[in-house]
């Protein structure tokens, strides 16, 4: 029932959006207010239906209705509320819904704030993209063909080939598959929505550019579109930043950027959108470059759709660490892409002859030319990244079954571009605010260049930079920082709201510095023995059991409990034990790795990386562990550390293997004889090691319990504390020792007490009052255990903070620009 209503709502919204498209088209053609009103109502109704459908989907998720594929596939009944809500956009169907929801909200804003003659076409194109998005989730059956994948489809509809569903279509699973453990992170709450906000806002420059072409008003549109485009850029940048930060601090990817197709998918539209912003600003200032700003505005959205196609069609399945569910939307996504590109570029070239051209060419030293060059650099970076991401498609020109390009492809091509962009930001800014010739520019730049050289030299000396290429890069980055800062300083004194551009450019320069420092000077933290081993590998002295020379260096080290090791001559590192924390993720261990300065001066700190079993994919006989690194953020460098193995994890795995063996009846015979018994004596107040445990005998007390009959002469309970070594949680055990008289003879009675969580027992077998000690008999614990250990991978990453600072300044700069342009637009009305 709910499913039917849900699909009905989605398709009612779909229908409304189709009608609204027609209405807006008529309004755009005839400029009759009546059509505008009707279309707005249809658009609003579409929004209502969609909201209702979203509410129903959320209801299905929250009430665990696992007969629905979406709830089954992305949630489970033990999921916390926040992850249940995140599951709404955890799958493709829901994320399409979220995308349309944001787009609808933006539509209301555009209705309110856009003026004629652009209003009609803008809303027409916005609604048109929504129609395409609706086709992805409609789920309407036309004969054998199903349009899109409905979020409300049942299990039986989603898996028509599964035999158990064919025989029993009303089958309801007991529990869902659950959200992937790696996605159970607070970032999952915020990263995807902001990304889709960015995607939907990127539609706006496209709509305005198309409206300009339609209405042949090629100039004023940029005033309207600029604040929106800036907003789209901030949203995308924030999403990229959050994604990078998420990857860095909670996934063990080892860094914030990996040129993964999914990361690229949001980066390319951002680059093209930024190129578009530059051209729009020039068009506003100088009434030139209409062609370029329209082209970039179109291409930015084409990039959004193209990257959506790449990531959602299943094409990239082999080349990304992300996994994609292939919903069979391939053809629809192609159609969407072809339509957006075809309509966009088609209209652009149709009107091309009519578009204003410049009377005379811009000089090399002009803000028009320099800014255009800057945009082209951004565009080319975008193109290169898009090319790399497209390797499964375009790579077929070269080889069959192509692999993704090596990471060096991206780095080698973007680095010279970034250097060029760094220089262009300063030249462009100097020309932007004042017309100058080469001579006056050279004079103005004397001091910035001098300071840049000093800063670069200082960096080279302090950082020990040897690479000539890096030196050039540093020069460009410092030049961008210093040159733009000088201009920013001048602008602040004139009118503070004008600094958006320069602030962003300063941020860009700082970002460049941070990227180089954090990626090229990343250092593994290793103990001296591992370092010696690695040196031996470097000298080619190590061979493996096959007799081959080992070439792969080791980048992890073993730490034994409470045995400090000196790493990189810098820190004294001690493994201090672990805590079992069951609240957040059952079975999670939090390890304590203490860092002290090796020379004893300075402060110490404790890193707390975590390891947890992946519940959605583990079973009793096979536990899959996942790691959650800990990052200590510092002003100059971060320490990034995760535990890649430990004696605790190994024991648990061994236990799981035992379990798996027990489950097979064939190996039953080995069970009985393996239990070994050991007797220990322990004095009061003493702690002794027993296998992997530390056992403390606190006290004993006589039991005056009425349950014992008179025949019992002595009844004593020992008060024991048992701690698994390394762990800081312990259990209390109170084993009983009693002596009773039966038939005139004394008998002792000491029942075994189970150690919780282990297949072992303790019996209190005897008392030695003269020594104050007791004897215990322990069954099922190995006597010889190795010392507790952890395997640690640690890296020192310099100046990650600078990367974040650069990103924040970029965001701040864009935000200031939004205020400035929005402010101006409001004053016009």
């Amino acid at each position: 029932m709910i499913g039917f209503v849900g699909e009905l709502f989605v398709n009612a919204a779909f229908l409304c959006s189709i009608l609204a498209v027609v209405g807006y088209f008529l309004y755009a053609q005839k400029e009759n207010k009546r059509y505008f009103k009707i279309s707005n109502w249809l658009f609003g109704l579409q929004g209502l239906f969609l909201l209702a459908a979203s509410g129903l989907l959320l209801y299905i998720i929250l009430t665990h209705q696992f007969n629905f594929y979406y709830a089954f596939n992305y949630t489970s009944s033990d999921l916390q509320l926040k992850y249940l809500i995140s599951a709404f956009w955890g799958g493709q169907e829901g994320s399409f819904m979220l995308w349309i929801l944001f787009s609808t909200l933006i539509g209301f804003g555009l209705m309110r704030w856009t003026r004629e003659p652009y209003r009609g076409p803008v809303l027409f194109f916005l609604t048109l993209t929504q129609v395409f998005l609706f086709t992805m989730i409609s789920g309407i059956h036309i004969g054998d063909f199903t349009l899109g994948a409905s979020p409300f489809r049942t299990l039986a509809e989603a898996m028509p080939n599964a035999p158990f569903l064919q025989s029993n279509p009303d089958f309801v699973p007991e529990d869902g598959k659950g959200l992937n453990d790696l996605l159970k992170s607070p970032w999952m709450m915020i990263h995807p929505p902001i990304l889709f906000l960015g995607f939907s806002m990127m539609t706006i420059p496209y709509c305005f550019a198309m409206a300009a072409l339609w209405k042949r008003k090629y100039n004023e549109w940029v005033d309207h579109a600029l604040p929106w485009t800036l907003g789209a850029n901030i949203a995308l940048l924030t999403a990229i930043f959050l994604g990078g930060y998420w990857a860095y601090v909670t996934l063990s990817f080892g860094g914030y950027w990996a040129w993964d197709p999914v990361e690229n998918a949001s980066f390319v539209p951002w680059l093209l959108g930024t190129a578009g912003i530059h051209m729009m600003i020039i068009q506003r200032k100088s009434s030139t470059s209409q062609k370029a700003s329209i082209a970039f505005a179109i291409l930015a959205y084409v990039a959004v759709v193209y990257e959506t196609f790449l990531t959602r069609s299943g094409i990239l399945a082999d080349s990304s660490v992300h996994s994609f569910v292939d919903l069979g939307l391939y053809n629809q996504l192609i159609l969407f892409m072809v339509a957006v590109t075809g309509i966009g570029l088609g209209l652009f070239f149709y009107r091309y002859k009519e578009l204003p051209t410049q009377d005379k060419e811009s000089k090399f030293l002009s803000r028009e030319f320099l800014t255009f060059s800057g945009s082209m650099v951004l565009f080319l970076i975008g193109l290169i990244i898009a090319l790399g991401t497209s390797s499964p498609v375009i790579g077929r020109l070269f080889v069959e079954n192509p692999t993704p390009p090596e990471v060096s492809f991206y780095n080698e091509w973007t680095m010279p571009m970034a250097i060029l962009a760094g220089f262009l930001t300063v030249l462009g800014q100097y020309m932007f605010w004042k017309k100058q010739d080469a001579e006056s520019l050279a004079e103005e730049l004397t001091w910035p260049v001098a300071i840049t050289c000093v800063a670069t030299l200082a960096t080279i000396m302090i950082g020990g930079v040897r690479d000539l290429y890096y030196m050039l890069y540093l020069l460009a980055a410092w030049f961008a920082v210093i040159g733009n800062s000088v201009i920013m300083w001048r602008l602040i004194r004139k009118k503070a709201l004008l600094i958006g551009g320069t602030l962003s450019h300063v941020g860009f320069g700082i970002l460049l510095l941070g990227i180089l420092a954090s990626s090229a000077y990343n250092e593994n933290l290793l103990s001296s023995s591992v370092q010696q081993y690695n040196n031996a590998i470097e000298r080619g002295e190590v061979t493996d059991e096959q007799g081959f020379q080992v070439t792969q260096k080791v980048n992890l080290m073993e730490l034994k409990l409470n045995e400090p090791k000196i790493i990189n001559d810098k820190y004294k590192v001690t493994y201090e034990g672990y805590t079992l924390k069951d609240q957040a993720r059952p079975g999670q261990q939090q390890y304590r790795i203490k860092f002290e300065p090796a020379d004893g001066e300075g402060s110490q700190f404790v890193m707390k990386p975590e390891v947890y079993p992946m519940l959605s994919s583990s079973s009793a006989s096979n536990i899959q562990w996942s790691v959650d690194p800990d990052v200590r953020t510092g002003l100059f460098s971060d320490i990034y550390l995760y535990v890649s193995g430990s004696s605790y994890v190994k024991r648990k795995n061994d236990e799981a293997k035992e379990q798996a063996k027990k489950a097979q009846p064939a190996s039953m015979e080995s069970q009985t004889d393996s239990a070994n018994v050991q007797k220990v004596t322990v004095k009061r107040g003493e702690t002794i090691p027993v296998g992997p445990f530390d056992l403390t005998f606190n006290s004993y007390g006589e039991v005056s319990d009425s349950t014992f009959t008179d025949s019992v002469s002595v009844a004593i309970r020992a008060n024991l504390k048992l701690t698994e070594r390394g762990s800081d949680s312990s259990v209390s055990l109170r084993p009983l020792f009693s002596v009773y008289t039966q038939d005139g003879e004394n008998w002792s009675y000491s029942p075994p007490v189970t150690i919780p969580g282990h297949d072992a027992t303790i019996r209190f077998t005897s008392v030695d009052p003269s020594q104050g000690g007791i004897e215990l008999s322990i069954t099922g614990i190995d006597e010889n255990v190795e010392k507790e250990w952890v395997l640690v991978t640690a890296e020192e990453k310099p100046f990650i903070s600078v990367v974040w600072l650069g990103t924040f300044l970029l965001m701040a700069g864009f935000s200031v620009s939004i205020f400035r342009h929005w402010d101006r637009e409001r004053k016009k009305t």
Partner: protein
Amino acid sequence: MKPKVLVGIIAIVGFTSLLMYNFGNSISTYVNFEQASGMEGAHVVGTLDKSKDFGFSMESKQFSFHLKDQAGNVRRVVYPKPKPNNFEQADRIVVIGKMKGDVFYANDMLMKCPSKYNNTDASQFKQANASKS
């Protein structure tokens, strides 16, 4: 034709061909273990051979397992890092590295997790109480 346009065209053609040339060099094709011998950075796709042991060795600090490539060749693969997340779950594994003798030395590994559930094993499903439906 204006000289400026000519220069522009030459620049674009030059840039594009250099880019495509470099791009073509930086991608390779997925191969099997036999084709991988002698290659640097070979990409091999395969499935985990669960009949053989796999695990991390504390002595050599290496993770080793047996992979069956798409041509059916089974080879031992060593990887100088601990067992990656999702390892057993993966329905396909891509290893990137080179062959030395009969052993593949992987520098990188990608786990491909199952994404289609259309043929899910029925035993994975547990029926809920009848009252629920």
